[in-house]
């Protein structure tokens, strides 16, 4: 019996080759694929159709919650919990609430940006099958990888290897699960 694999990985040595390979794989009909590069490549995002993510919405919600929490906290404390006359100002003295409302908006929006980013990426993830490929360590240095995953409906070990070879990679390797 053949051992199941996570996918097949092709290695390239420049970003242009990787972007072209990603485009070719999409055109061929592969959908469960991912590319790995040592720096962000805008064209790659286009090639893999990755433009929409929910992060802006998460950050917006975080900001709104932060702002509301900041304002309501001050309102509750100065009007309900501990009403005290400071220099004859009204208890609900909204101009003095602006700063803390603003800071709380920024704080919660930033926290949700970071946590949201980690959540959308599925990080922290100490183990991932791609790390089984010895040369994959170079993905954080100077090499570019395209991985077609085995769960893709078009995936077929022999034919996918053949296809990846046509893209003129440096090397094609199997990724153990």
């Amino acid at each position: 019996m053949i051992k199941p694999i996570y996918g097949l990985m092709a290695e390239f040595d420049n970003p242009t080759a990787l972007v072209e390979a990603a485009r070719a794989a999409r055109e061929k009909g592969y959908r469960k694929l991912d590319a790995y590069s040592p720096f962000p490549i805008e064209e790659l995002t286009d090639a893999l159709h990755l433009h929409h993510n929910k992060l802006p919405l998460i950050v917006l919600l975080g900001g709104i919650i932060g702002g509301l929490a900041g304002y309501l906290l001050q309102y509750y404390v100065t009007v309900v919990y501990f009403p005290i006359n400071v220099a004859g100002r009204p208890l609900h003295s909204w101009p003095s609430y602006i700063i803390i409302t603003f800071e709380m908006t920024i704080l919660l929006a930033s926290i949700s940006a970071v946590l949201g980013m980690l959540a959308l990426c599925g990080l922290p993830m100490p183990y991932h099958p791609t790390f089984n490929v010895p040369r994959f360590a170079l993905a954080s240095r100077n090499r570019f990888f395209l991985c077609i995953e085995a769960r893709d409906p078009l995936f077929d070990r022999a034919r996918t290897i053949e296809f990846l070879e046509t893209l003129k990679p440096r090397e094609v390797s199997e990724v153990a699960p």
Partner: protein
Amino acid sequence: MADEPNVHRPKTIIAPGYTFGTVTDQIASVVLTKRTPVIWYVSFGAGLVLLLLFLLAVGVLFAKGTGIWGLRTPVMWGFAITNFVWWIGIGHAGTLISAILLLLNQSWRNSINRFAEAMTLFAVACAGVFPVLHLGRPWLAYWLFPYPNTMGVQPNFRSPLVWDVFAVSTYATVSLMFWFVGLMPDLATLRDRTHNRFARFAYGILAMGWRGSARHWSVYETASLLLAGLATPLVLSVHTVVSFDFTIAIVPGWHTTFLPPYFVAGAIYSGFAMVLALAIPLRSVYGLQGLITDRHLDNSAKVMLATGLIVAYAYILETFSAWYGGNTYEQAMVWHRMTGPYAVSYWSLMLCNILAPQALWFKKVRSRPVFLFISAIVVLVGMWLERYVIIVSSLAQDFLPSSWSIFHATRWDWFTYIGTIGLFLFLFFLFIRLLPMISIFEVRTLLPAAKVEEEVES
């Protein structure tokens, strides 16, 4: 219009001849090498000694109280608040470089943003120490935050001092997160490059399993942009709120509307001075002239000159509005500053902040790192004096001559101040040794090879 795309890609910001591999190896080797330069031990050791001095000063302060400082009525703010404002101002340049220049697509920032952000973080740490020590009972610092308590009281949200608590703690938190997010891909690089098992484990945990996936990069880029967009108004707000500590009070010399922009400009001025003061020695010790090039120094010097001119304008405006406003106390305040007991500090700060930086108009000065280093130190001294004069001279001679009193710094004032410089150096050199001081992945994007060559779409 044909060559429009080139406008966004300045080609020569880092020296030619670098590849993805060599950039990675050079920056990572500073951390992964077993050989640490002697100068690192010397600087780190100096930082450690001063840090011990700081711990001593704080220990004595805890035992005896703020009376060991020169604080006497009416000057109750003295060195502690001067140092707080000075340090937090220095931090601002890091956020400016990492957030504002990112939004403005100034890609030259990519090789100086990492250590500038670290500088921000450590400067904010040094700044945060002072208001807490100044509380008198620092162990009750948590009273500054609103929390459910049995005392039945809460902070006064109408006070700028409470605003400051929120502004500075938000700033520290956001700076830390922004810095850490920026580090993640580089931590993955270190994890993959190190041969030491413990280092691989530690960097691996910190990198959180980053693998450079295109899906991750796309979310990551969105997150960086959003964080930059959030940090930009934040950094401008922080020094504005710090200036509210002064402007909301009615003390002459404090109660003016131009203080917020003046403080922000001064903050960026001193921050860029600190960036230069750190970058110039670092790049020559570690041979990074190809990555932190003369153009970086030149650009930073230009920012310093521009913000220095804004600061100079603020000094002139301060004097003018005191005269034109016709308020006796404001006029007396300016006169006291110029001719009174703090005249030496006042005129030194004019010399350091206005006169000396005019040398930066000349290309010859800007292209000589030694001159730049000296002018950066001069500006740092000048900006400290500026905060000192604003705080101390205004408090020492306010409305009633019968309550005037001159501030004399004690040795404990100096030890605490110099001690935080030690804390800063200690943390900074630890950072240099343990983390990549230049953002490796962002420098990779600056290389000509990083550009995807597209066939022209019809």
